[in-house]
């Protein structure tokens, strides 16, 4: 793992779980597997704090444990999972577009809590939805939330966490040092039968009298205890977000939008249909989808795209003939069989990403040279000048720039054993894989920089932020007690106009940086996906 990755992981852990978790997490990331005591020693953190931190990390699937050969439990952190924290907003947003507000909240809750039972998740979401509804007494039905939950499971966006083995009946074996967690393939996507009846509850508004409040609290607590005593039917069955499935969806979106950009809307809609049909039949890391016949595709096209079979066939053969090669022809039966070349598409997207980097950083002439070398594989400087039609001096400059940024490589092929420069070929080449890896590191560092800057912006304005929060709180409580308009205004004016401006600017900046973090993550996603497909055997 590189320094950039560790740095970013540490920033993410700190932001989401606080300092201690960051200290513990970053330490295990750097050192690899470690037993509890060593972690405590090395980080100078009390044992119970380390334990708590590890609990948090395990709960969020960022750390796993395992029995070492010497008999103690070792903890290992997974940097790839930590880095996914960056992608949480994207997961949540996707759930919203696919399954509405309910889906959004379910995924959000699961991500915030790491793992949850279905019943708690459904209740929580129903409560939250009820709160946002108009105050006319309407409430969200549990049943409705459950059914969205089930749909998310059915489409594999959520899956069941591995569970400890049931101890064999009667045997009084001592509990194992480290529980072994197992997933049964069969149960991974089966939802327990739950009949959840009821509606979301609104939190009591805060205008209750103090006395009332206290008694309320008490009854609540009592109720809570009663609640937790009656075990829920799905106790012990926990669920988590299936990030792989989301990634598959992101990949599909990337392919679809590439087609839409290069060709047109209808072509991309056809590809979308093909990808949707393949979702269940094709494993997420397959090189290409299962073959689909043109007839099948025709039947599955969404209504509203009024295109005839004949026109569909034309689109399909244009897609298959395009040099992009995202769609391939795999046979002639059933009106032609077609596949989507997923790995090829990712490779193309990765190289387009690199091209875009060269274009933005070094200009279009440099991008021309880069693409030229990419196409021709190996070229001498003179050939680069001739093909790209760039003056010799400029070409030389650009090649050296690309070389120093590791975007191209230079290979020496001596004609004679003495390696004399005058009798040596100097060949430039592009290695997409290694350049992608380097760019990925640059992305990690960029996100870390953005986070640092965001923290800095908020820190700079800390006093102001606190002041405005205080004032808002005062106003809220005054409004609740029915203060007069004039009074409210007076309080509001405690924040001066320039202060208000500053707050606005801060808000804008933070939003802007946030948005950029997500944009960089898009680049990261493409590069990571490409690298993982091209390095797996």
């Amino acid at each position, binding site marked *: 793992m590189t320094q950039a990755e560790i740095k970013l992981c540490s920033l993410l852990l700190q932001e989401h779980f606080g300092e201690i978790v960051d200290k513990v997490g970053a330490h295990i990331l750097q050192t690899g597997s470690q037993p509890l005591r060593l972690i405590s020693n090395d980080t100078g953190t009390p044992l119970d704090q380390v334990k708590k931190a590890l609990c948090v990390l395990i709960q969020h699937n960022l750390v796993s444990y395992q029995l070492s050969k010497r008999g103690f439990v070792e903890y290992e952190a997974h940097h790839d999972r930590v880095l996914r924290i960056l992608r949480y907003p994207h997961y949540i947003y996707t759930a919203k577009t696919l399954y509405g507000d309910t889906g959004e909240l379910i995924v959000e809750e699961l991500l915030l809590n790491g793992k949850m039972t279905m019943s708690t998740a459904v209740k929580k979401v129903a409560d939250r939805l009820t709160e946002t509804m108009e105050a006319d007494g309407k409430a969200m039905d549990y049943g409705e939330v459950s059914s969205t939950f089930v749909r998310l499971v059915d489409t594999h966006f959520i899956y069941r966490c591995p569970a400890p083995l049931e101890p064999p009946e009667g045997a009084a074996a001592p509990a194992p040092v480290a529980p072994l967690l197992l997933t049964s393939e069969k149960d991974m996507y089966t939802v327990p039968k739950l009949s959840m009846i009821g509606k979301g509850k609104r939190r009591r508004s805060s205008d209750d009298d103090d006395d009332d409040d206290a008694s309320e609290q008490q009854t609540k607590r009592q109720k809570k205890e009663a609640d937790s005593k009656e075990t829920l039917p799905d106790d012990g069955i926990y669920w988590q977000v299936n990030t792989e499935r989301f990634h598959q969806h992101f990949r599909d979106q990337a392919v679809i939008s590439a087609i839409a950009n290069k060709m047109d809307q209808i072509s991309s809609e056809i590809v979308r249909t093909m990808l949707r049909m393949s979702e269940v039949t094709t494993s997420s890391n397959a090189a290409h989808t299962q073959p689909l016949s043109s007839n099948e595709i025709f039947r599955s096209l969404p209504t509203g795209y009024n295109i005839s079979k004949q026109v569909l066939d*034309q689109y399909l053969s244009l897609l298959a003939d395009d040099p992009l090669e995202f769609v391939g022809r795999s046979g002639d039966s059933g009106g032609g069989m077609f596949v989507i070349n997923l790995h090829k598409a990712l490779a193309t997207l990765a190289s387009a990403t690199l091209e875009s980097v060269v274009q933005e950083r070094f200009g279009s002439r440099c991008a021309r040279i880069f693409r030229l070398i990419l196409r021709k594989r190996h070229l001498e400087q003179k050939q680069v000048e001739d093909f790209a*039609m760039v003056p010799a001096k400029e070409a030389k400059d650009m090649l050296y720039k690309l070389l120093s940024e590791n975007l191209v490589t230079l290979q020496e092929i001596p004609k004679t054993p003495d390696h004399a420069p005058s009798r040596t070929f100097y060949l430039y080449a592009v290695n997409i894989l290694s350049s992608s890896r380097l760019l990925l590191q640059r992305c990690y560092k*960029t996100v870390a920089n953005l986070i640092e800057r965001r923290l*800095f912006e908020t820190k700079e304005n800390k006093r102001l932020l606190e002041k405005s929060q205080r004032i808002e709180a005062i106003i809220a409580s005054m409004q609740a007690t029915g203060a007069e308009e004039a009074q409210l205004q007076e309080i509001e004016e405690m924040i001066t106009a320039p202060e208000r401006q500053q707050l606005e600017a801060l808000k804008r900046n933070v939003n802007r940086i946030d948005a950029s973090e997500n944009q960089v993550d898009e680049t990261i996603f493409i590069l990571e996906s490409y690298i993982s497909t091209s390095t797996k055997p």
Partner: protein
Amino acid sequence: MADIKVKLETADLAEIENRILELCQQLPHGITDQVIQNELPHLEPQHRAVAINRLLSMGQLDLLRSGTGLLYRLKDAQSSGKMKGSDNQEKLVYQIIEDAGNKVASRVDFTLVMLVSEISCWLGSSVLSAGIWSRDIRYKSNLPLTEINKILKNLESKKLIKAVKSVAASKKKVYMLYNLQPDRSVTGGAWYSDQDFESEFVEVLNQQCFKFLQTKADAARDNKQSPMIQRNSSFASSHEVWKFICELGISKVELSMDDIETILNTLIYDGKVEMTIIAAKEGTVGSVDGQMKLYRAVNPIIHPTGIMRTPCGLCPVFDDCYEGGEISPSNCAYMSEWLEF
């Protein structure tokens, strides 16, 4: 016909060779195949080839490329006269330069050369040469550099040879016989004027070609035909592009279709254009060897990628930037500027 097929007698061969040499003497500027054919109408082409090959290998004849085809000339018929008063070293250097001038033809098999002669008609009226570099003259002659420079100056002043600046390297001079013209490898062709690469000219052409293809692609998209027709009508052949550029009149020099294809290639490397080759009926406008190159403008598949929309993506001091350092995200001016924008 049977008698002609009989194997060529040595005596006959000598006879033919003599006739050819005689012809060359009559026409000291050189003779073409056509001349030999007119003078010896009964001579079989194969026999002619054998005879010429022998004369070439014996060093009696010189083979030159010219605008109208190949030219045979008596060796030294011209130069020996001019070389009067030169010493052996000077002759040697002249010989090396002369050889370099027609190195294409002199070593190629004759039958192949006959083929070349048909193709090379487009070469223009003057004899072209790639010339020879002074360092190569030194290698071949084994004379000291100072000596060679003196000889070259001498020969230049006698107008027997000339020096031409090559586009390949600005300081590289090549030498060739005085009556030869530098070929494309020396002048660089349409893209060079006075050894300078006309970068702006190339870019203007690049833009104009793209504009042409883009307009065509837009029109194809707007005509709302079936997808197949839309795609097909977005293509333009290199001939069409060439015609458009010629009619535009932006070029002072005459551009060939090859020149335009070179420009179109740069558009392919720009990622803006795609090319396909289709089979075309012989004689279709713009087809070469039964093939036609078709070009069309295409859109990029992605927008500028995420990281390039942040200041760090473009940052020149990226590697020196770390929190707590001289340059850091907190004090970064690029960030401040970007946030204010």
